[in-house]
């Protein structure tokens, strides 16, 4: 199964893989070859690529995925390899978001802070997996 990951700035990944797992609005999914054609929306989470028994990770934050039987295309708005993540920055972002959530405020700020918190948690998780 061919996995292509493209971002607006570059082609992030394009190789044959055995399985790919990621988080969607409907929950975490794992895709094997010969999946039914499907389009899903990405939610911030860990992207796990299994390739010849080896596993690679990346932090996938936003975008959507087009699944065809022999091809998976991820249109990612934000995606990072573990090496590209600044751990201390993610930690700081996490604390900032938590602070904002506990202090309370307008609904829209809450949604934003929640999304920021989710992103920073994903980054921390992925950089720990390195």
């Amino acid at each position, binding site marked *: 199964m061919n996995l292509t990951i*493209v971002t*607006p700035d570059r082609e992030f990944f394009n190789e044959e893989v055995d399985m790919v797992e990621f988080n969607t609005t409907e929950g975490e999914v794992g895709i094997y070859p010969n999946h039914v054609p*499907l*389009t899903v929306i990405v939610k911030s989470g860990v992207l796990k690529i299994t390739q010849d028994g080896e596993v690679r990770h990346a932090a996938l934050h936003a975008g959507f995925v087009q699944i065809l039987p022999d091809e998976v295309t991820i249109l990612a708005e934000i995606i990072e390899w573990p090496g590209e993540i600044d751990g201390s920055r993610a930690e700081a972002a996490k604390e900032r978001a938590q602070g904002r959530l506990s202090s309370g405020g307008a609904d829209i700020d809450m949604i934003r802070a929640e999304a920021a918190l989710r992103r920073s948690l994903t980054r921390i998780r992925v950089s720990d997996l390195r």
Partner: protein
Amino acid sequence: MASMRDIKRRKSSVQSTQQITKAMKLVSTVKLQRSKGRAERSKTYFSCMYDTVVSMLSRAGEINHPFLQPSESKKKGIIVITGNRGLAGGYNSNIVKLIKNNEDFDKDDIIIYPVGRKGKEALSRFGYEMSEDYSDMIEEPVYTDAMKISKKVLDDFAAGEIGEIYVAYTAFKNTVTHIPTLLKLLPIKVEDERDDNEKAVLEFEPETEEAVELIIPKYITSLIYGAMIESVASENGARMQAMDSATSNAEEMISKLSLLYNRARQGSITQELTEIIAGAEAIS
């Protein structure tokens, strides 16, 4: 005939102008290479994006969503992408003309979302209504910039402040051809010429309506981003061309002035000689 000193002064001023235009040409050539590379690298993303949206909207008949319906509001929002700097030939003024000369656009029904100072200045002089200014972004457009703009226009669209959204940008065909383009973003109309059999059968998760809600903003964002980086490439291309012709014009002027200068120099030597000889003759 102008005096030797005048011609010399003129020549050196043209020469220093030529040096500047030459340097500007070199700078924009380098910038053009970079922005061209960027535009090409992002192509895969946009074609994938386009295919998905088309296959999604090929079943638009069943989808009832404000993004796909004509809106009540008569106002039209236009994202105008120009440069922050001039000296790029017709690059900035072509975009301004594109909006000014369009008969479908009534000045009072237009809200401009300016990206680029030149277009903003020109259009506000003509009395167009301006929304928030995004001029800083055009220097080095990144994807998050496009996200900010698309969020703003989609919010205004949802609030009913504008009923249609356009983007005016300069499409980059190749280094010498740049086409001022007006693209309608919302409400979306995708012409799909493929017949039903060719269309990819796609299921959506979550339901199609929700997927429209989530994917269309991403589609709009990618279009805005694409328009921004193409415009940057076009701007550098246009500036490179303008500076190239300025440099060769200066070259031409310099050679004409050199000829004039030499002629004036020769003339003055001849005159001096004649005077000396006439003087010598008078004495003898």
